[in-house]
């Protein structure tokens, strides 16, 4: 027996001396730098390099988001955001209106004075207004029609306009000045007809430009800021809740050890639009995750009571179902028409409903496969950091559709082995404002 052992040891000694191992690449620079700095080791250096790499990646991502946000804001300020341009155009409209008030008032006060159609028409095109101004004016007129503030002048030449109903909140001084009770001559009718049209527009304009009026007016700036006018002329409220659903496919990985079959997730989302760019989102998702790990990263502390003491874990393949509750901030990086490029950042908490693991282990030199099923509903608060970039587009009046590649960076381990599961995937979602 002793001879056999000696022979075997001798054989292994010869093998150890003569085995054909490829030489390592020249890595003198690493050694020289370590010797120069007199700190750390090559392994530490490798780990530090990894840490540095991830830190730089995270920092770059944050910086990128910051720059993108800044550029988006800058370009919005430069070109004029929809709200800003509306306010600007309303200011212009106000100026024009004031000018035309004077003309029309003068015309009513002096009926003999001939006012041509050219003078009386509400012609904004001669001014330096943009198409947006004209569009706004048209929209506002349409709006007035919808609100039944349009005034029909009854009868042919010289009839009165007593049927007109001027809204109660309209400024009476101006109305009386511009709507005399009875005017019998044709000339007067023409003048009044134009004046009344003008008054309608004036009313609508006054309604709409209240945002640029000083405090003390009937509608204040804050109320106007909460609303913007979309191209259909409908008042569009920015703030508010939206609901929707989301689904997607994902791949999961533990410490860059490779990928297994993809998982999926599906669930509902809810959000609150705080401002035009910013919103807060949460949700309730059902996730299916599949992953793989070597024994090195699997924490045996939860399993030690149920497994043989001498068991060493070689590897495991696992899958689990979790309910995920994300809390995220969504920021629109760039908006174009009804579409937005956005980014989100937040944290996700998990409730693990079940877990199924296949272990490959060695017990007393014998390799064996063990399976384990667990359903302990473990909760993991703030288990992952979520970051994503996405594209969202309005689909008519139905709501918004979004496509969102995302990354979940583990903040803590989940499951029986406390495994740091990193997830990357693609979400497709639909949201609808509840206003």
């Amino acid at each position, binding site marked *: 027996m002793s001879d056999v052992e000696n022979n*075997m040891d001798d054989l292994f000694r010869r093998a150890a001396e003569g*085995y054909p191992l*490829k030489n390592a690449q020249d890595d003198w620079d690493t050694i020289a730098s370590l010797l120069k700095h007199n700190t750390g*080791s090559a392994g530490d250096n490798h780990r530090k390099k990894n840490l540095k790499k991830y830190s730089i990646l995270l920092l770059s991502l944050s910086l990128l988001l910051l720059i993108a946000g800044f550029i988006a804001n800058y370009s919005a300020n430069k070109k004029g955001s929809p709200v800003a341009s509306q306010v600007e155009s309303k200011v212009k409209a106000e100026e024009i209106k004031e000018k035309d008030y004077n003309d029309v008032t003068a015309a009513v006060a002096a009926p003999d004075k001939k006012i041509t159609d050219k003078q009386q028409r509400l012609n904004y095109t001669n001014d330096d207004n943009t198409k947006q101004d004209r569009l706004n004016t048209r929209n506002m007129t349409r709006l007035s029609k919808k609100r039944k503030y349009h005034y029909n002048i009854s009868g042919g030449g010289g009839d009165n306009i007593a049927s007109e109903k001027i809204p109660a909140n309209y400024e009476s001084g101006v109305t009386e000045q511009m709507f005399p009770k009875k005017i019998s001559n044709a000339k007067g009718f023409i003048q009044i007809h134009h004046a009344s049209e003008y008054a309608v527009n004036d009313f609508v304009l006054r309604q709409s430009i209240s945002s640029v009026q000083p405090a003390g007016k009937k509608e204040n700036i804050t109320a106007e800021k909460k609303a913007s006018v979309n191209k259909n002329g409908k008042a569009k409220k920015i703030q508010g809740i939206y609901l929707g659903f989301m689904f997607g496919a994902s791949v999961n990985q533990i410490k860059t050890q490779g990928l297994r079959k993809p998982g999926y997730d599906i669930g509902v989302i809810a959000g609150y639009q705080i401002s035009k760019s910013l919103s807060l989102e949460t949700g309730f998702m059902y996730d299916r995750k599949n992953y793989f790990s070597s024994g090195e990263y699997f924490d045996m502390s939860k399993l030690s009571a149920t497994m043989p003491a001498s068991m060493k874990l*070689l590897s495991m393949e696992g899958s689990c179902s979790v309910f995920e509750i994300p809390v995220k901030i969504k920021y629109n990086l760039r908006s174009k028409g009804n579409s937005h490029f956005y980014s989100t950042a937040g944290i996700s908490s998990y409730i693990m409903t079940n877990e199924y693991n296949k272990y490959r282990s060695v017990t007393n030199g014998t390799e064996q496969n063990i399976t384990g099923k667990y359903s302990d509903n473990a909760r993991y608060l703030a288990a992952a950091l979520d970051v994503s970039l996405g594209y969202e587009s309005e689909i008519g009046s139905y709501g918004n559709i979004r496509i969102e590649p995302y990354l979940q960076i583990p903040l803590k381990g989940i499951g029986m082995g406390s495994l740091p599961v990193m997830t990357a995937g693609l979400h497709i979602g639909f949201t609808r404002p509840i206003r």
Partner: protein
Amino acid sequence: MENITNIIKGCKQHNDKYQRIIYNQYRGFALKIVFRYIYRYDKAVDVVNDGFVKLFRSFEKFEPGDDADHEKKFMGWFKRILVNTAIDELRRGSMLPEIGGIPEHVWEIKDNSQNADHLLLYKDLIVLIKELPPTCRVVFNLYAIDGYTHSEIADMIKIPVGTSKSSLSRARSILQNRIKKMEEEKLCRM
């Protein structure tokens, strides 16, 4: 070619020219030692680099003595540094086993060599050692190949002497079984 005595003197004076010579000359030797202990090739390379750093930092402590065979003494001393560094690395990973095969590109077998069969056998034997459970692997390497005693091993890897002995016996039994299997497979193929 520089004389080993001069190289050692240069290294003691932290002369990077001589350090580089040592690195180039003993890189392969170091990797062969470490790779028996450390399962993954890339990790073994890191451990070798750590070993060289430790070597150059503590070169003043090396006493070549009066005998002419400086190189042999130096190699023994360096081997001890490498083994300790490898054990430190294993203990950092809690002596847990690693998985995955050893990629073929880490081996260097020349086709036309007359010793190709020997090399293949040696390669297979090293793979058998590497596939042992970590404690058995370390004890077998230290005792059977590197020539340490059980009490030294117990000190090095902080286990009782009895555990060292039982680990060695387990390692031998596993290796014998696997060698038998290997031979049976070879016979079947023939």
